[in-house]
């Protein structure tokens, strides 16, 4: 019997695959495409205090082995998420991670308080790394001190497991990881997208309506792996690794680099059935390699 399950700060995941925030909405679209239970956990769309309609189009642009997006946290706001979206998603029995994004430290605290009153949330994920909103987002995550304060702000009002999602755009992700843990993070997720852009040579203008956007997809996997490899050696908390996962090999690489669970983001946009295929391939890999417990491989690339 092969054990693909994993644990994140006391949260039991049936398998290490996590639907990454931003490609899963609140599950309603995915429920028409595949089985939400294929995931070990799901992270919902970045949710803000007030509803946001998102950025002007074009919002997406393909790049070599990847894509840029500048969706801009289009979401119905915390109240609708708490009252309607999360209760609906509970029916699948899959651990729910609510990704939250605040413009101020106070907003982060308030978001923590709102979701403390909602049943069935396994963890909050503090988004200090969204590159597509003018205020907040990335500005917190670029700096160790503001990452610490943002984490602490949620920690004050949210008593459950707390995830902080890190950006690869800061020059020193390790010191930001340490600051987040010091602020009360129980789990780290990394990486968010890399800031990039594209120019349309016909119009001679940026392609994206927001000018810059977040790069994701296989193109960023080497950067993501490096970040997980470095951060997992520097902190004690478990890590959800992500960035360009599109096959079971990628999942294995992230686990070997130090991740306890692995997010699927842009890959899901291309192949909605990806988690199902990856799970089958992981089982086959474990069988062939004689591996009984997949998470036994966590960090094997750097451990003695």
């Amino acid at each position: 019997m092969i054990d693909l399950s994993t644990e994140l700060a006391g949260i039991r995941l049936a398998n290490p695959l996590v639907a990454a925030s931003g490609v899963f909405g609140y599950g309603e679209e995915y429920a028409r495409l595949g089985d939400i239970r294929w995931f070990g956990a799901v992270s919902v769309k970045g949710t803000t205090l007030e509803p946001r309609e998102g950025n002007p189009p074009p919002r997406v642009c393909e790049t070599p082995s990847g894509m840029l997006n500048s969706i801009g946290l289009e979401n119905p706001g915390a109240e609708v998420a708490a009252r309607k979206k999360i209760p609906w998603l509970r029916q699948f029995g899959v651990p729910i991670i609510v990704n939250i994004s605040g413009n101020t430290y106070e907003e982060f605290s308030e978001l923590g308080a709102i979701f403390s009153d909602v049943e069935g949330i396994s963890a909050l994920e503090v988004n200090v790394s969204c590159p597509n909103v003018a205020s907040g987002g990335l500005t917190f995550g670029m700096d160790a001190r503001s990452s610490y304060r943002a984490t602490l702000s949620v920690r004050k009002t949210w008593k459950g497991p707390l995830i902080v999602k890190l950006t690869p755009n800061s020059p020193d992700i390790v010191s930001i990881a340490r600051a987040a843990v010091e602020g009360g993070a129980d789990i780290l997720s990394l990486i968010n997208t890399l800031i990039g852009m594209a120019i349309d040579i016909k119009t001679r203008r940026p392609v994206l309506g927001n000018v810059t956007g977040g790069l994701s997809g296989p193109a960023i996997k080497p950067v993501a792996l490096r970040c997980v490899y470095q951060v997992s050696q520097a902190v004690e908390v478990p890590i959800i690794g992500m960035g360009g996962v599109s096959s079971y090999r990628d999942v294995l690489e992230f686990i070997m680099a130090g991740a306890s669970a692995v997010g699927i983001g842009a890959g899901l946009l291309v192949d909605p059935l990806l988690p199902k295929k990856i799970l089958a391939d992981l089982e086959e890999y474990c069988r062939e390699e004689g591996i009984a417990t997949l998470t036994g491989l966590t960090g094997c690339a750097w451990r003695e």
Partner: protein
Amino acid sequence: MKTCEGSRLVGTKEAECIETGFTGHGPFEVLASITSVKREQGGVRTALLYAPEIARRAKPMQFVQVKVVPLTDPFLRRPFGFSRISPDEGIIGITWATVGKGTSLMAGWHEGDTVSVLGPLGNGLQVDRISGIACTPPENAPEQHTGRGNPSRSMEQRSKGRSVWLIAGGTGLAPLYPLAESMKPQVSDITVLYGAKTSASLMDTSPFGAMGCRVTVSTEDGSKGARGRVTEALGRLLASAGETLRHNRPLAVACGPAPMLRAVKSMLADTPVELYISLEERMACGTGLCRGCAVKAASPRRGYLHVCTDGPVFPAGEVLLGGEG
């Protein structure tokens, strides 16, 4: 919801594709085999794909997302409307002009190759919900109702049915073919207004003619049909319809480049013509997951709509096109 691991299940029965415990009607991923690839008039190619799970459910103006090659570059699937829907044969058709990386690679497709196709996606045009035009799939409609070759019947239909205007530019003609086909049993008066830059880029309109549609072709350089843009032909049609517009209230469906759609929308804005437009926007998933293909809703309360899940066909009044509003 149903999912089909099409790569291993092509040609199997629907029941075998259904995961237990689901009740929805989601799209299928099918590893479709290419049954033919043809170069056609107008510098386009059409591929016919064997994808029975999709063909059986496809509605005109819906689309599929095609993984052109099973590699990470190009990364995203490519959206294509249906240029043919043959549920009985299990065949769908997609038609494209070579414009970029994806479509260039598609020029290398061969008969017998297989490609991953996800669909059907989007809402299509729910013609049966538009009052005065009850539209049923062709196979369900008795042949004699077409009215073709029966002038008296045709007159009778014309007097009670609304007219349909199909307005297309460039490759925008392709998805209108299955639409016309689906309307044909119940709509006697279908006019196709089609325009392209030159005769070399004109797609073949003869299938519409064979169906009994009135076809008006325009080219910008006058190398075939009327000289000018398709909107000029629309202006003439509007003028000739005159007073009959008010009681006939034609249904118009426009598919083509964004400037054409803007022009058509503005021309028909203050007329009794009910206009639907098929939109394109840079799209990533096509399934509603990413929220990428945003289009501004006319009602500020609705924020952005999404081409993949709210469209791709919209009542023209519900969306703001670039430069409007």
